[in-house]
C-alpha cells in the first residue's frame, strides 16, 4: 500500500475514534481500540493490539470529566503505533512518540475550541431565534466535525505522510509560552459559561445562594455533589419543610424532587402554606 493511501486510512481511523462523541461516547477513542484499528491498517493486527494495550495504560489518566480536556490520545496512539510498526520497533517506541504528538494535537484541538466552535454556537442561537430546527441540527452535527474531527484527521494523515522526524522538528518549534498560554486560557474559559448562566438566573433575592455554593467549596473543600445535597436540604427548609406538619403529600410523591433526602419522614405542609 502506498504511503498516501495508508495516511488516508489512518486519518479515517483517527476520525472514527473522535466520532465516539457522535456515537454515544462509546470509548472508540481509547488506545485499546485505536491501536487495534491502526494495526489492522498497517497489516499487523497483533502488534497493534499489544501497542494499544501498552498505550491504554499510559493514557489511563486522560479522560474528560466536566470541563477538563485531556491530551489527545487518539492521534498519539494512531501515529505512535503506525510509526512503531512501520519501523519494526517495540511498543515503548510507540509510547515515546505518542505522548508529544498527543500534546501537539491538544493545541490544535484547543484552537478548534477557541476559534471555530463559538461561530457554530452563535449560529445555532440565531437559528433558534428563527425557529429553524434544521439549522440547529446542522450546527450540532457540523460543529464537532469542523472544529475537532477534521483537524485531528488532517494532523494524523499529514503527519504520517511527512514522517516521524519532521513532526518532532515541528513540535520543537512551538514556543513554550504559547502551549502553556493556551492551557491557562482553557482554565479561564468556563467562567464565560458560568457568567451566561448567572446572567440568566441571578437577582437580588437569590445572589446569596450563589455565594453559599462558592463558599462551601472554597472553605470546606467539599465537591459539587456535596454542595447540591446541602443546598437541596436548604431549599427544603426555605420552602416550608417541616417534619411536624400534616401529611397531605406522601413521601413517595415528593421523592422525585431529589432522591435521598426525601426518604422517610419528610412531609410537605402543602395547601395551607
Amino acid at each position: 500500500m502506498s504511503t498516501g493511501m495508508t495516511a488516508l486510512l489512518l486519518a479515517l481511523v483517527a476520525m472514527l475514534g473522535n466520532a465516539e462523541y457522535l456515537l454515544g461516547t462509546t470509548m472508540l477513542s481509547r488506545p485499546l481500540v485505536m491501536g487495534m484499528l491502526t494495526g489492522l491498517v498497517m497489516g499487523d493486527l497483533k502488534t497493534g493490539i499489544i501497542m494499544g494495550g501498552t498505550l491504554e495504560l499510559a493514557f489511563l489518566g486522560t479522560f474528560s470529566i466536566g470541563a477538563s480536556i485531556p491530551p489527545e490520545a487518539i492521534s498519539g496512539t494512531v501515529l505512535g503505533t503506525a510509526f512503531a510498526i512501520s519501523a519494526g520497533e517495540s511498543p515503548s517506541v510507540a509510547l515515546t512518540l505518542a505522548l508529544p504528538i498527543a500534546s501537539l494535537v491538544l493545541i490544535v484541538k484547543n484552537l478548534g475550541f477557541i476559534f471555530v466552535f463559538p461561530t457554530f454556537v452563535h449560529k445555532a442561537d440565531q437559528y433558534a431565534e428563527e425557529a429553524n430546527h434544521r439549522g440547529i441540527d446542522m450546527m450540532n452535527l457540523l460543529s464537532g466535525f469542523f472544529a475537532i474531527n477534521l483537524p485531528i484527521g488532517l494532523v494524523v494523515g499529514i503527519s504520517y505522510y511527512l514522517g516521524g522526524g519532521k513532526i518532532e522538528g515541528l513540535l520543537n518549534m512551538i514556543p513554550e509560552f504559547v502551549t502553556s498560554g493556551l492551557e491557562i486560557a482553557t482554565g479561564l474559559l468556563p467562567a464565560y459559561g458560568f457568567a451566561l448562566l448567572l446572567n440568566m438566573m441571578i437577582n437580588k433575592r437569590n445572589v446569596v445562594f450563589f455565594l453559599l455554593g462558592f463558599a462551601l467549596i472554597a472553605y470546606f473543600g467539599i465537591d459539587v455533589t456535596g454542595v447540591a445535597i446541602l443546598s437541596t436540604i436548604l431549599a427544603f427548609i426555605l420552602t416550608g419543610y417541616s417534619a411536624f406538619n400534616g401529611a397531605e403529600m406522601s413521601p413517595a410523591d415528593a421523592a422525585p424532587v431529589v432522591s435521598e433526602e426525601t426518604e422517610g419522614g419528610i412531609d410537605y405542609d402543602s395547601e395551607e402554606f
Partner: protein
Amino acid sequence: MTAKNSNILTKNDLMRVFWRSFTMEWAWNYERQMNMGFCYSLIPALNKIYKTDEERSDAYKRHLEFFNITPWISTFPMGIAIALEEQNAAEKDFDTSTINNIKIALMGPLSGIGDSFFWGTLRVIATGIGTSLALKGNILGPILFLLIFNIPALLARYFGLKWGYELGSSFIDTILHSGLMDRLTYGASVIGLAVVGAMTASMVNLNIPLTLGSGEEAQTVTDLFNGIVPSVLPLLFTFIILYLVKKEVKAHWILLLMVFLGIFGAYTGILG
C-alpha cells in the same frame, strides 16, 4: 405510570430523542458545553409539543443554555425536561424558568454519581480486563473492553430517558395540583445557583504565581488572595466576565480576551 391528558408524545418520539442523545458530546464547547447536543436531542419532542414558531423558538433557546452531565445518563434530565415542556404547553401560567432551574439542579448530583460509576468503576473494570488480554495480543481485549463498558452505558441511556420522563410526568402533576409550583421554582433556583457557585470555585482556574517579598516572607499573589478568601480570583474573574456579558460584549471578544490573557500571562509569567 398512568398516562395523563397532556401526554402527547408517543414511544416513537421518545426513541428519536434517545438516538439523538448519542451526539451529546459531539458539539461540546467551552462556552455552554453540551448545549447544542441537548437541544438537538430534544428537537423531535419539542416540535411535537409546540406548533407555532414563537413557542418553538422559545423552547429551542431554553435548551441551548449551558448544560453538562455525564453523557450516558444525559437522557434522564432530558426525560424530565420533556415532561416539563408538555406541562408548559398544557398550562397557561407555567413558569418556564423552572425547566432550566431543574436541569441545572440535576446536573451536579447526577454527574457526581454518573462520573464515579462510569469513569471510576465501569471503565476501570473494562480497561483492566481489556488491557490484560490486549497485552498478550488477544483480539478479545479491545472487543471485551467495548462490550463491558457499552452494554451498561446503553441500558442507562435507555432507562434514563424512560424513568426521567415518567418521573417528570407524575411528579409535575402532583406538584401543580398541590400548589407547590412556586416553592419548587424557588427551591430549584436555590440549588441551581449554589451549584453554579460551586462550579465557579472548582472549575475556573486562575493562578498568579508572581512572588511578593523574598526569602521566608515570599508568597505568591494567589496565596495572598487565598489568604483573604480562598479561590477569590476565579470568583472575581467570573464577575468581571458577568459584567461584560451584561454590557452585551460579543462572545468572540470575550473568548479572544481569555486567549490573549492566557498567552500574555504565560509569556510574562504573571499567570501560571
